[in-house]
């Protein structure tokens, strides 16, 4: 199951020390059901804020956000959110972390324990059901984080730089794992990252954001066939796309530096 995401005229202002700051400004974005979209931009461009607004975690000042037919004003049952810092509850075992969402929905214990077992199998954590998060590596914790978001069987999966704190090798393994899981479950995915190669490798579409105010600057279709493997990253075609996007945002990063200095 997957749903469309439809953002129209979405704006958000933050008040920082008396200054009104437009973080996101009249932003329109349509994402098709089952599509994998990467939101790319420099830090501070409002991409995380945009993602949080899609789950109703941050209220919007203007515009509308729809997931399927549902208008989002508060956290929705049709969305799974994967946080950047894994944000697992340290006192809960892996199974208890994964089944939290179903527990909140009041499902019977037998059901959510079975669902947790299946999901842990899917993310490759079979045998770690009764471990606590502190006993796991960073990559394993992000697998739990992913399984937890999938547990409520959401139609949309939102991921906020989920692999940012992982080392380079683990990051590549997790990118492949995410693609494998996405192929198995076919959710609509929005993946926030500031790494161009990660965005190009994972997504059907890379949406490039500009900063202050956050707007969509470019929307690039990624033509590579699926399933993809890491070999793709060594091809000239891949690097050509990465280069093109790099040039698109280069001037903007330079512009940011001027503003800051």
């Amino acid at each position, binding site marked *: 199951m997957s749903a469309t995401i439809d953002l129209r005229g979405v704006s958000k202002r933050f008040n920082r020390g008396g200054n009104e700051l437009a973080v996101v400004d009249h932003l329109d974005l349509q994402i098709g059901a089952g599509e994998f979209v990467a939101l790319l931009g420099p830090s501070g461009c409002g991409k995380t804020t945009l993602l949080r607004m899609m789950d109703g*975690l941050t209220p919007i000042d203007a515009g509308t956000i729809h997931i399927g037919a549902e208008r989002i004003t508060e956290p929705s049952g049709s969305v799974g959110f994967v946080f950047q810092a894994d*944000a697992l*509850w340290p*006192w809960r075992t892996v199974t208890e972390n994964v089944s939290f969402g179903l527990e909140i929905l009041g499902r019977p214990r037998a059901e959510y324990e079975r669902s947790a077992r299946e999901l842990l199998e899917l993310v490759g954590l079979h045998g770690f059901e009764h471990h606590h998060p*502190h006993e796991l590596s960073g990559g394993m914790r992000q697998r739990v984080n992913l399984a937890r978001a999938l547990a409520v069987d959401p139609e949309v999966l939102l991921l906020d730089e989920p692999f940012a704190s992982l080392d380079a090798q683990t990051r590549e393994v997790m990118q492949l794992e995410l693609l494998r899981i996405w192929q198995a479950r076919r959710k609509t995915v929005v993946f926030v990252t500031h790494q161009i190669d990660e965005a190009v490798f994972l997504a059907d579409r890379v949406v490039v954001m500009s900063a202050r105010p956050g707007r969509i600057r470019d929307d690039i279709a990624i033509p590579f066939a699926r399933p993809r493997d890491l070999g793709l990253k060594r091809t000239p075609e891949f690097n050509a796309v990465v280069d093109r996007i790099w040039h698109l945002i280069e001037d903007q990063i330079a512009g940011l530096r001027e503003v800051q200095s």
Partner: protein
Amino acid sequence: MRAVISFVVFALAWELTGRFLITGAYAFAPLSVVVVEMWRQFASGAIFPHLLTSGYELGLGFGIAAVIGIAIGVLVGVSETLADFLLPLIYAANATPIVALAPLFILLLGVGPTSKVVVIFLLCYFAVLVNTVAGIRTVDRQLVEAARAFRANRLQIVRLVMLPFAVPFIIAGLRTALGRGLVGVIVAELYGASAGLGWLAWSASEQMNAKLLFVAVTILAVSGVTCTVALDVLERRIAPWRHPPLEVD
């Protein structure tokens, strides 16, 4: 192992001090004499009324303080408004040496156990309260956020996120409270009582009976250590993530 060595050295030093350094029988007693006296007190049953009285005072005062302290602590920790009103007052009360009020409560409530229960309750209550509030208020926002993303309501967030997060803080509060409570028992009984370990220590010193005084103090020390260890075990059981298992090599 090193702890055992420390204890043995301490016991030896105690014994030798009593044998050779301070030999006046009414000022000090060597360990062996204290042990014999302890045995005699337990065998004759003379110690039990004192144990029961002090145990009752501490148990009731500490128990009520723990329950109410955690309950009010969660409320104050969750509500910004309540915290704004009450926290300055709570911090002030926590910093007040409440033991100094013991004579007042004995005057008001008599020399029986009730006045001690009240003093011990107040001593313990603020320690539990302050730590519970700290635990709830320092909760990791990300953990709350994650629960919110799964559509947990306010009550569920308190029960499933804030309270478990605060457990190590609450146990730290209970540990402090217990230490204060033990002091409270003794001091409150010194001001006026008819039974209890504090009263026993005081009356033993009035009679220059050093060995009996040390019996009372030793029992208090052992109870203190036992309770602290019990709280550590409790923490390990309900908050195992605070104690990552040691690497075995």
